[in-house]
């Protein structure tokens, strides 16, 4: 078995799978980063991702165009995120309550819509055209890293490109300074003429869009069909990724890769038939989430006003 694990094909296959598994976590994690940096905690990520996953699949199934599916998934994510926005920004509802509500809503909604559209038959599984890998000219011909890094699905490139883009937005643009100010001290932001609610709505929309797109990666990228609760906790892991990544774009990328690698590793172990009940292998990424949160949570400090409702004139 150790020879299999050390072989080049195994390692490249593993890393490639790790990048793919990390992608939805990275998309949702970067999305959540915008929200949290502006002070809005969205624990409804799991639900938003699931809805994005479903609407992306349905649109691609009906139109035959995966790109439209991705956009539809992002749009569906925005709609759900806006519910959270209205509740937590305009009405000052507890963000935890709103997020939990969204998760419950989305679980039920996705099952109902899927059954209403495709019926409850399991024998004839509906499929959608998936994304196809994009070869980057020249670079994809390089040995080893060519296949690994430069012949990936388009969303993988987008997800990783978002890391430097987000860094630039947060630390080098006026908008980024406003976002960070709203997350640290909304009252101070308001007194210098920043419309806190407006900035927070913008960030909530970004969270919804990127998380929705992250969902479509599951039903149009990793697999080409939709099944119940397909996200299987990835939305929750994305929240953990933000904490583990210490609210920084590069940190979130690193954290997403660690989880991606853990997931990919356990899948490969199952495939080569290791003598451990597969349920234990399945647990690896989730147990890792808990362990890392235990180790890092106390030390990392998030935005000071994270999760606190802000109502003017109070």
């Amino acid at each position, binding site marked *: 078995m150790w020879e299999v694990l050390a072989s080049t094909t195994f390692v490249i296959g593993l890393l490639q799978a790790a990048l793919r598994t990390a992608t939805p976590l990275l998309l949702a994690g970067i999305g959540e980063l915008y929200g949290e940096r502006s002070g809005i905690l969205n624990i409804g990520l799991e639900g938003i991702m699931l809805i994005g996953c479903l609407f992306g699949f349905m649109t691609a199934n009906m139109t035959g165009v995966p790109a439209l599916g991705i956009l539809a998934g992002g749009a569906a994510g925005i709609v759900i995120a806006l519910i959270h926005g209205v509740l937590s920004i305009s009405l000052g509802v507890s963000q935890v309550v709103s997020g939990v509500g969204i998760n419950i809503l989305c679980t039920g909604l996705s099952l109902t819509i899927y059954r209403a559209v495709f019926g409850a038959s399991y024998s004839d599984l509906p499929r959608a055209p998936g994304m196809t890998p994009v070869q980057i000219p020249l670079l994809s011909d390089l040995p080893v890293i060519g296949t690994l890094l430069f012949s990936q699905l388009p969303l993988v490139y987008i997800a990783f490109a978002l890391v430097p883009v987000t860094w630039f937005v947060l630390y*080098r*643009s*006026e*908008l*980024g*300074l*406003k976002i*960070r*100010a709203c997350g*640290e*001290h909304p*009252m*101070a*932001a*308001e*007194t*210098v*003429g*920043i*419309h806190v609610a407006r900035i927070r709505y913008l960030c909530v929309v970004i969270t919804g869009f990127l998380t929705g797109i992250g969902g479509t990666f599951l039903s149009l990228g990793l697999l080409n069909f939709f099944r119940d609760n397909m996200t299987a906790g990835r939305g929750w892991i994305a929240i953990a990724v933000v904490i583990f990544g210490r609210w920084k774009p590069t940190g979130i990328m690193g954290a997403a890769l660690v989880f991606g690698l853990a997931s990919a590793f356990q899948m490969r172990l199952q495939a080569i038939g290791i003598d451990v009940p597969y349920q234990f292998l399945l647990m690896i990424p989730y147990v890792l989430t808990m362990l890392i949160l235990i180790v890092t949570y106390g030390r990392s400090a998030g935005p*000071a006003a994270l999760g606190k409702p802000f109502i*003017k*004139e109070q």
Partner: protein
Amino acid sequence: MEQPVVEMKGMVKRFGSLTAVDRVDFTLQKGTIHALLGENGAGKSTLMNLLAGLYQPDEGKIRINGEAAVIHSPRDAYDRKIGMVHQHFMLIPKLTVAENIILGLQTRSSPLLNIKDASGQIRELSQRFGIQADPDALVEELTSGEQQRVEILKMLYRNADILILDEPTAVLTPQEVSSLFQVLRKMAGQGFSIILITHKLEEVLSLCDTVDILRDGKKIDSRPASESDRNSLARMMVGREVLLEYDRLSGEQGETVLETKGISAKGSDGRDLLQDISLQVRAGEILGVAGVSGNGQSELAKTCAGLRRADSGSILCSGRDITGTSIAQRIRLGISYIPDDRHALGMFPGMGVADNLVVKQHDRPPFSRRGFRRESAIHSSADKLIDSYNIRTTSRDTSMRSLSGGNQQKAVLARELSVSPQVIIADQPTRGLDVGAIEYIHQLLLEHRRRNAAVLLISTELDEILNLSDRIIVMYAGRITYTCDTDSADIEQIGLAMAGELQ
């Protein structure tokens, strides 16, 4: 007479059923320093928040330089060159000085940040007005005096020429106060118009040209400061005669009751909160702890009360080592603690007054029998305390939340002091209260001193310390920087010690 810079007519602002500002007129002349004097809750800050665009008035008209103005947002206020330095600074600790100053400003040329140009302009402003500030420093690393200078620069950077300062001296040492006043005088001389919100009579008399007195949301009077004196101002502010000084009556002091020996403690971020603090409080003595807020005073109080552990050193109560004992044991030894933040630590806002009063003793007779509450005992004790401490509440079951700040604090004091404690640790017991409640609490503390309790009194109001204490220590950055008897206290030295500049 010249055209006034600001004219507010018939301003009204309501919050629910409360009228915070009730038909107030206000006129500010160019190049003057104008005081708004009043107690907490008199409506001073609310009135100025209407001018700064943070609140919208329910009624009333504002004219700026003769022109009718509707101010919907802080940005509108900046457009009219009005800037406000709030009592709680509106700075973001994790950003630099320059980032804080340019925050929210739109540069027309590009969406990117241009910190370098901004820093240059900030340096220029800071030289022109003699206000020291380093644009690249992180705000969280600045003292409160330095943060205030950043706030003033922030307004100057926005070209404000009408400057509102809300209780600016609350966080300053005496020396910082005098240098702030110098800057303000200089600015007024250059044509800036300044509004000073304050409840301190001395500031009105020594700095301001004009004073408006507010009480319960209404304007009582407006007059030149030169035609005012302490007693008449205090009377208008409070609505009755007030005692401005107390007879401390030197009493007999007994044995040392509370003692700390070299206690040190670090914060979770590794910063030193307390460094080698040794002090003694004797029976019948009030030891005053002066200092700018955030220099370890609250940590000292919490360590003595058992809310946090010292990393080294020991705490003794009547000679007995209590360093490792629990809070419950310390309560049984007769240590009472009045926390600085009554909302966070002093009370249960959703519970009734009676439950709040009994909570320290609810598990022992006569209030409890075999694990069950004895309502009759709880009720009669609560009624007695409500009466004797003059707590104004509609009933003993009214929730604490709906009491006024002064009455909440009286309830906390009733709970802590009715047990005749040996040691009283009072951390800012009068913060945010009106003069009447402050007077009452001061009398209570003096009464317990006469009863031979040992009192550790922490306050950021130097006057309070000087009025009540027998001895004074000053804390800076977690250390004791000065110790003296009140009778031989030197204000100059205390001020230097508060700033950490005393060798």
